[in-house]
């Protein structure tokens, strides 16, 4: 059982932060359950209301890098998926990947806090 991490600067993630928009969204998509590539693209599109629209090359290029850094792992298809293509690969965030995602989220929160303090953004953003 690992401890939840502190600030954004742990685990040697310096080189990875800040995450690009595309990578951040991909990590988010792979956080809650395994997905295959196409599903990730759809999920991101839905979640961002169409503002982030990844191409296949961007997605798989990023996935390759993420796997190289052990942030994402390939997993078997979850049993409840109706799979019309047995060759489809599914991905899921690793523990390390989750920590990176959290680190980025922390970083974003800190950045947001400054903006709130300065009055650039209203403080109440819950559910926004």
């Amino acid at each position: 059982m690992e401890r939840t991490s502190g600030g954004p600067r742990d685990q040697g993630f310096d080189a990875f932060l800040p995450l690009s928009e595309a990578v951040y969204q991909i990590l988010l998509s792979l956080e809650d359950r395994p997905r295959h590539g196409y599903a990730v693209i759809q999920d991101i599109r839905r979640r961002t209301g169409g503002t982030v629209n990844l191409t296949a090359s961007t997605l798989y290029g990023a996935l390759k890098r993420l796997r190289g850094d052990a942030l994402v792992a390939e997993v078997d298809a979850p049993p409840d998926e109706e799979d019309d293509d047995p060759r489809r690969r599914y991905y899921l965030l690793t523990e390390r990947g989750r920590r990176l995602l959290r680190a980025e989220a922390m970083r974003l929160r800190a950045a947001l806090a400054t903006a709130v303090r300065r009055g650039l953004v209203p403080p109440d953003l819950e559910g926004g």
Partner: protein
Amino acid sequence: MKGTRWSVRLFRAAVRVLLPSWSRDELGSQVESTGVRLLDDARSEGGALREARTLARELSSLTALALRERTTGRDESSLGGEGTVMMGQDVRFAFRMLTRNPGTTVASLLTLALGIGAVTAVFSAVNGVLLDPLDYRRPERVVLVGERGPSGGYSSLSWENFRDWQESDVFDAVAAFSGTSVSVSGEGAPERIRGLFVSASYFDVVGIRPALGRAIEAGEDEPGGPRVAVLSWGWWQERFGGDPDVLGRTIRLNNEPHTIVGVMPRGFRSPFDTPSAWISLQTAPRDLDRSSRDLQAIALLREGDDAATAGARLGRVAAGLAERYPDANEGWGAWAIRLDGWVSGRYRPLLLGLLAAVAVLLLIAGANVAGLQLARTEARTRELAVRAALGGSRGRLVRQLLVENGLLVALGGALGLGLSFFGVDGLVALNPGLDAFFDVGVDGRVLAAGVGVTSLVALGFGLLPALAAGRLDPGTLLAGRGGATGRRGARARSALVVGQVALSLALLVSAGLLVRSMMALGRVDPGFDTDKLLTAEFRLTGERYDTPDEIVAFFDQVVDRIAKLPGVEGVTTAQHLPFGDRGTIPFILEGTEPDLDRAPRVELSRIMPGYVKVMGMKLLRGRGLDADAGLDDPVEAVVGETTARELVPGDALGRSFYISEDLRVARIVGVVSDVSLSLTEGPARSVYLNQRQDPSAFASLAVRTGGEPMQLARPVREAVWSVDPDQPVWEVMPIQDRMAATVAGQRFGMTLLSFFGVLAALLAAVGIYGVMAHTVGARTRELGVRLALGAMEGRVLRLVLVRAATLVAGGVVVGLLLAWWSATLLDSLLFGVTSRDPLTFAAAVVLLATVAFLAAWLPARRATRVDPVRTLQDT
């Protein structure tokens, strides 16, 4: 699966082609299947347009992915390599690496700068001459027009016919003009300028109006109308000091007062020898006769017309005129061609050839830089291997190399663009005709071309080293064997060198052929003594020289005064000197049927008696012209040998021929040696009349000097002015300068090509040196072993040199083929030598081989100095 749409097929093919082999299976198949699904979705959501947009996005990101894959290598993949923050670091690091090897860096920079600078400079000329030759407002609609003679030849236009053409509706506007030299007198020093006599419609065709004042108006070009002139900007500055009050002032042109009404805009150039002034046409010395055809004409095509259709319509107009005026126009037609094509046609082969040669140079330069960089990359294999083994991102390393190369090319390109400014000046200096007619300079389009070239070079030659680095395998590198990659790198560089040698050979052969042409031209004997002969021009105009007596008297006095000058060995005049203007008449013997159209033409010149002697020609038969012959005596002539032989049956002496339309004759009293009127023509058919009997107001002076001809320039001018202070004396120069001007184009090409050829050979030598040095370096251990085992130094030397020789031999073979083909492109420029001249080819091969040998010699010698003991210890 439904029938595959073209978009899907295209995407699939792109994935297959772009991605490297090792990533195709996994990455490629995923990208392909998901990409196709996305395309399907796009089509069902938004139709073909949406699908096309999606396809475009997918393709461009696919390209980026492919590039990244290819430069990163097989299994290396990290998130940590992205971001512009890294870029800044890369640039700083690149600077450091470049300064660490100043020698190679400077060599690369210079090579690139020269190549890119040369391309940009030549392109600026191509731009000005070929792409944008006319300063007119609608250059694509301007045509050159004229009459077509009964024998089908191109002819100029007569005034009356011009007026009729204007009335007809064939063009939006038609303008007649005539370019000639004009004497200027009145206030200020007497001068001779280039003047263009134009009809008022000229400014409508050209579409450019004066910057100051107004253009010539309708009515001012009618015979008897007011005489006006529009100045060029340059002349306005020069003679009138840019005085804004110049409008309304009067100047005397050809002794007639003209009112200045306008000044043309700055930098406006005319393709017909940019004049100093545009003058209302009716003052030109010409006849009003319909059959007196001495005008040129340009016209503005109607909207939607092209030259061919307009020409056909004009032909019908001409046919109509032929019916109405059969005496003058029977059998005469018309022609029309685009002016911009005609104007640039003259220079097109030369410039395109130059562009090709320079592009070749750039290729060689780029190859050199790539080679140097490859060598540097391999020299750093150790560093790269250690870094890769320690887990550093290889993709990062490759990116660094790319940035390094990019930086090199960017700097070299910037330097090159700077050099190109000088290059343009040089080009213009070598070939003044360029600047007089065309706007040759570095403008936006040329800069864009320069930047484009730079980027292409960066992309092309920078990728090579980067790709080579991408294939590095840390294992073998650390083991010191570097075998696989070393060999592949060396093979690439060898290929580069073979290419360089081949291209250099082609350039050298072309240069050599042109050099031999120039030499042959220099050896041409034009038939007279060209050494120390000063020439000058006059055109006598005005009331003072109305009668033949007055003309003869003037020239007698001038010749007399000049003959008395110290340093003058002989002086004479001629209506036309060789290498100058020409005038021909039909040669019709007295008593034969006069047929003006079919009679052979001969070059006519009215000479002073004594001309033959001063010019160093020979009197072959009969006698020379009589110095005492007067205006009332029967007119005498001497003819050239070729004329006598070819055109006069039997003995020429004593025969007469017609010298004017009123059937006056001249009697042949002597036959003289032939002269050539230009370097590339053979002897001309010439006839010479006695200036004292049939004087011409147009004459050139020829002065044989004891010493340097130009030293007498001022005394000659002053001698002329002592007879008539208003008489401009013009183009005072030794005849050899005139001769050189006629081959200026070829000389220009020759100089440049030779320069390029030598440069190319040097660059190829650098390339060879690099490859050899690398070979020796890579095989140091092997060579050390051999020497330790007792191999003779000579053996080792031979080993290295044989390697070099194979490379060069390969390059020579390819180069000979290239040269064989490219030499044919030069055919039209060659003189006295064929494009297959074996001597030139052999000389070029020998030159290149010598240079290559020397370049290989140094590293080869180093190979023999390898200390066997040290290399064995030094793993």
